[in-house]
C-alpha cells in the first residue's frame, strides 16, 4: 500500500485546515481583544449545527440548498446575539478578573450543553448532505460539501481581513487587542468593541457549525470535541494571534490529513498533542504569540487581604465531627447510599489534592487523567503482574506522579490559560492512548474483571461497607498528609511563590521545582484515588474519565473557594447534594452545576468559604480597600 494518494492528502488538508481555521480564528479574536479564553466557543459551534437542523425540520419540502443558505445567515445571527448577551452578562462584569470570566464560560459551556440535551435529546442527529455531488481532481475526491466548507472559510477570512484592516470599527478592534489602555486613551469604546468582537467570534463559530453540520453529526457534545482541536490550534499558534491561528490551522490540517490518509486517523489526537507539547517546550507562548514582556507577572488580587479565618482549633473540631459523621454513615445508609458515599470519598481525595495543585498558581485540567492513570496502573499491575492491592495502591499514586512530572516539564513553563489549555489537551491525549492502544490498555472496553482488595485483618472488601471504611481511611490519611503539607513551610512557600514569581526567583526559590512538586503531589493522591476507584468498580473503562468529571472537580473548587483547605470540601458537598437531589432528573445536573458556577463567579468570587469566614467575622461586609498601586506590574521593568 505504498501508493499514496497525494491529491487526496491535499484535498483533505485544505478542508480540514478550513474547518480548524474558521473555528479557531474566532477564539483567537476573542482572546486578543478580551484576554479571556471563551470555553463556550464550542457550544456556539454546536448551536450553529442545531440551527441548521431546526430549519430543516421547520421547512420540509424547501430545497436543501435554500435551507442551507437561510441557515448560513440565520444561525450565525442568532448565535451572535447570544454572544453579545454573554459578553454583557459574563465577560464584562468579570473583565478585571479574566480567569473568573474563563471559569464562568466553562460553566456556560455546560449550561448550553445541558440545554441542548433537554431540547434536542442526547442522540446525535445526522443531517442530509446539503450540497450533494463530488468531483475528481487528479485522483482525489472532493465532495461539494467540503468544497463549500473551504470556500466558506476563505470567504470568512477575507471578510474578517477586510473588516479588521479596512473599516473604522475593525481598527478599533485591532487597537483594543494591542493595548487596551492606549485604546481607551484614544477614546475607543471598549464595551462596544467587546460586544462587536463577541458577536463576530460567535458568528464565526456558528458558521462553521452550519457548514460542518452535515459533515459530522450534530450532537450536544460536538462542541466539546471540536474545542479540543481549537485549543491545540490557538496554543500552538499563540493565544490571541489571528495569523498564528491560521498558520497552526494549516499545520494541523496537513498533519491530520497525512495521518488520516495513511490510515493512522485514530492517533490524530495523540500526534497533535505531542506536537503541541514539543512546540510549547520551545515556544512557551506559541509560534506567533506576541512576545509579551518577558517578566510579566500573573495578576495578584489582594482581594481578601485581612480576611478572618476560622481558627485552627475550630476547623479541627469540625473536621473530627465530619469524620465521625462519615464513620457512622454506613450504619444509617442503604447500600445505594453507601456506594454514593464511597464515590464521595474518592471525589473528596480528588478535590483536596486538586487544591494542592492549584496552590502553585495553575489550574490543571488533567487531574482526572491522573485518576485514570492510577486506575489503569491498578488494573495493569493486578492483571499483568498479579500484585496485591495493598502494594498497588501506593504504586498507582507513584505512576500518576511520574506521568505528571513527565508532562509538567513542557507544560509548566506556560502560564495561566496556556497551562490550563495544554493540560486539557495533554489529558485528552492520554485518555486517547488508553482507548487507541488496544493491546496494552484494552481499548474502549478497558480492563474488566479486577478482583477486590485482599482480605485484611479478616475483613473482606467484597462487602461495600468495609470498602467504604477503606476509602474513609485512605481519604483521612491523604487529607491529613495534604493538610500538613498545606500548613508546612514548603506549602506556604509554594502559595507565596505563585503570588510573585519574580521576587521568588530573586530570593532563591526555584519556582519550577516547587510547581512540579505541587503538581506531582496532587497527582500522587489522585492516582491513589484512582486505585480505590478501580478497586470499587471492579473494572477500568476510559469512558469513566470524562471532561464532565473534571468539570465537577473544578466546580467544587470554584464554588467552595480555594483560599483555605476547607473550601473545596464545602464545594464538593454542595455539588453532591445537588446531584442527589436531582437524581430523578439527571439531565438537569450539569445545568445546575453550570449555573451555580456562573453565579459564584459573578456574585461570590471568594466562594462559599469566603461567605462562611465573613459570617464568622460577624462583619457584614469588609470595607472595600483599593488594591494598592498596580501590584500586578511587579515586573522588574522600569
Amino acid at each position, binding site marked *: 500500500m505504498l501508493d499514496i494518494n497525494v491529491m487526496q492528502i491535499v484535498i483533505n488538508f485544505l478542508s480540514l485546515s478550513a474547518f480548524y481555521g474558521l473555528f479557531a480564528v474566532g477564539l483567537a479574536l476573542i482572546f486578543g481583544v478580551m484576554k479571556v479564553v471563551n470555553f463556550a466557543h464550542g457550544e456556539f459551534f454546536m448551536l450553529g449545527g442545531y440551527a441548521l437542523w431546526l430549519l430543516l425540520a421547520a421547512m420540509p419540502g424547501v430545497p436543501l440548498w435554500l435551507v442551507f443558505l437561510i441557515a448560513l445567515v440565520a444561525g450565525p445571527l442568532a448565535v451572535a446575539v447570544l454572544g453579545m448577551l454573554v459578553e454583557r452578562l459574563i465577560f464584562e462584569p468579570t473583565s478585571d478578573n479574566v480567569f473568573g470570566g474563563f471559569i464562568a464560560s466553562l460553566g456556560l459551556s455546560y449550561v448550553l450543553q445541558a440545554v441542548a440535551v433537554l431540547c434536542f435529546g442526547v442522540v446525535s442527529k445526522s443531517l442530509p448532505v446539503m450540497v450533494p455531488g463530488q468531483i475528481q481532481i487528479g485522483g482525489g475526491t472532493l465532495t461539494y460539501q467540503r468544497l463549500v466548507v473551504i470556500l466558506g472559510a476563505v470567504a470568512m477570512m477575507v471578510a474578517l481581513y477586510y473588516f479588521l484592516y479596512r473599516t473604522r470599527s475593525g481598527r478599533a478592534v485591532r487597537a483594543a487587542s494591542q493595548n487596551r489602555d492606549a485604546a481607551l486613551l484614544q477614546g475607543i469604546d471598549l464595551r462596544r468593541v467587546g460586544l462587536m468582537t463577541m458577536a463576530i467570534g460567535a458568528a464565526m463559530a456558528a458558521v462553521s457549525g452550519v457548514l460542518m453540520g452535515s459533515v459530522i453529526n450534530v450532537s450536544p457534545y460536538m462542541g466539546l470535541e471540536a474545542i479540543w482541536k481549537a485549543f491545540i490550534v490557538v496554543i500552538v499558534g499563540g493565544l490571541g494571534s489571528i495569523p498564528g491561528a491560521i498558520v497552526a490551522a494549516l499545520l494541523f490540517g496537513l498533519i491530520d490529513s497525512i495521518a488520516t490518509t495513511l490510515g493512522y486517523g485514530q492517533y490524530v489526537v495523540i500526534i497533535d498533542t505531542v506536537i503541541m507539547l514539543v512546540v510549547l517546550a520551545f515556544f512557551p507562548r506559541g509560534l506567533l504569540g506576541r512576545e509579551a514582556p518577558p517578566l510579566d507577572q500573573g495578576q495578584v488580587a489582594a482581594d481578601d*487581604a485581612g480576611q478572618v479565618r476560622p481558627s485552627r482549633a475550630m476547623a479541627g473540631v469540625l473536621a473530627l465531627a465530619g469524620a465521625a459523621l462519615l464513620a457512622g454513615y454506613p450504619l444509617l445508609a442503604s447500600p445505594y447510599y453507601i456506594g454514593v458515599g464511597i464515590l464521595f470519598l474518592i471525589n473528596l481525595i480528588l478535590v483536596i489534592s486538586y487544591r494542592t495543585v492549584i496552590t502553585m498558581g495553575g489550574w490543571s485540567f488533567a487531574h482526572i487523567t491522573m485518576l485514570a492513570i492510577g486506575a489503569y496502573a491498578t488494573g495493569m499491575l493486578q492483571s499483568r503482574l498479579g500484585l496485591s492491592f495493598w502494594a498497588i495502591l501506593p504504586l498507582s499514586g507513584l505512576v500518576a506522579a511520574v506521568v505528571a512530572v513527565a508532562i509538567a516539564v513542557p507544560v509548566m513553563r506556560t502560564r495561566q490559560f496556556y497551562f490550563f489549555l495544554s493540560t486539557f489537551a495533554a489529558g485528552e491525549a492520554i485518555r486517547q492512548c488508553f482507548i487507541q492502544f488496544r493491546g496494552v490498555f484494552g481499548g474502549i472496553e478497558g480492563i474488566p474483571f479486577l478482583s477486590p482488595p485482599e482480605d485484611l485483618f479478616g475483613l473482606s472488601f467484597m462487602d461495600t461497607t468495609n470498602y467504604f471504611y477503606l476509602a474513609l481511611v485512605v481519604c483521612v490519611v491523604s487529607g491529613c498528609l495534604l493538610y500538613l503539607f498545606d500548613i*508546612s513551610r514548603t506549602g506556604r512557600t509554594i502559595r*507565596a511563590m505563585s503570588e*510573585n514569581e519574580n521576587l521568588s526567583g*530573586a*530570593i*532563591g526559590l526555584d519556582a519550577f521545582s516547587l510547581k512540579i512538586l505541587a503538581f506531582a503531589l496532587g497527582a500522587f493522591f489522585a492516582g491513589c484515588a484512582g486505585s480505590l476507584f478501580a478497586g470499587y468498580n471492579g473494572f477500568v473503562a476510559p469512558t469513566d474519565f470524562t471532561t464532565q468529571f473534571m468539570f465537577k472537580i473544578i466546580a467544587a473548587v470554584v464554588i467552595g473557594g480555594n483560599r483555605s483547605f476547607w473550601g473545596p470540601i464545602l464545594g464538593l458537598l454542595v455539588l453532591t447534594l445537588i446531584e442527589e437531589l436531582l437524581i430523578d432528573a439527571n439531565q438537569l445536573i450539569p445545568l445546575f452545576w453550570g449555573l451555580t458556577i456562573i453565579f459564584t463567579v459573578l456574585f461570590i468570587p471568594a466562594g462559599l468559604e469566603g461567605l462562611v469566614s465573613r459570617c464568622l467575622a460577624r462583619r457584614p461586609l469588609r470595607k472595600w480597600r483599593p488594591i494598592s498601586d498596580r501590584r500586578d506590574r511587579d515586573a*522588574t521593568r*522600569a
Partner: protein
Amino acid sequence: MLRVHDLTRRFGRLMALDHVSFEISAGTIHGLIGPNGSGKTTFFNLVTGFLPANEGKVFWDGRDVTGLPPHRISRLGLARTFQNTSNYARLTVRENLVIASRNHIESSALARMLHLRSARSEEARHGRSADALLERFGMRDLADVQAAQLPGGTQKILGVAIALSTNPRLVMLDEPLAGLNTGEKAQLMTILRGLCADGLTLLLIEHDMKAIMQACDRITVLSYGTLLAEGTPEEISRDPATIKAYLGTEVA
C-alpha cells in the same frame, strides 16, 4: 567581586546594553547612574539571570555565572531589589522576611513538607532573625502588618529588607530611594552605610544625585546602553561626558 565583561542585550533593534564591562570590589558602595532608559535595570536583569544576555559574561568571585537562573544566583549570595515595590502582598512583614530566608535553610526537605518539629523550630529562628532585621529598619512594630497594608515608602524599604534576608554578600538596589520621603531617605541611607561597614557590598542605582555622591565609593555612568564613565564621585561630577549626557536629557 562582581565583574562583567562585554555585557550586551538587545530588544529588537534597541541596544539596551552595549558591551558594558566593569568591576565591583568587595566592601564598597558602588553607584550605577544614567538617564532614564539607559539600561540600568536591564543590567540588573542580566546579572541576576532574569534576562539572558546576547553577549558577554558575568563573573562572581571569579566564577562564570552567566545564564544561571535567578534562584541559583541568589543562592550564591547575590541579592537584588526591584524598581517597583515587590513583596508578597498577602503575607505579613515578618512572613515576607521568613520566606526570603530560604537561603538559610538547613532542615531537611521532608521535615519542611510535613511540618515536623525541626522545620518549625528553624522557622521560629528565622522569625527571630527577621525581627532583629526589622529592629534595624525601625519597623519592629510593623512585623505583623500585612504587606499590602503598608504605605508605599515602607513597602519599598520592606523590599530592601527582603533582599537582606537572603544571606547576601552583594546587594543590588534598584532605585531604593524613589518614592521615599526625606526622612525615610536619610534613614535608609544610614542603614545602608551601616550594612556596608559590616562588610556588605552594595550596588546602587539611583537618580538622587546628592545621595549618590555622598554615599558611593565608586560610580559607573551608563547612557544609551554604553558605559560613559567610571570613577570616584569627584571624578564623575567633573566628567564632561557625564555632564553632557545629563544636560542633554534635560534639554530634550
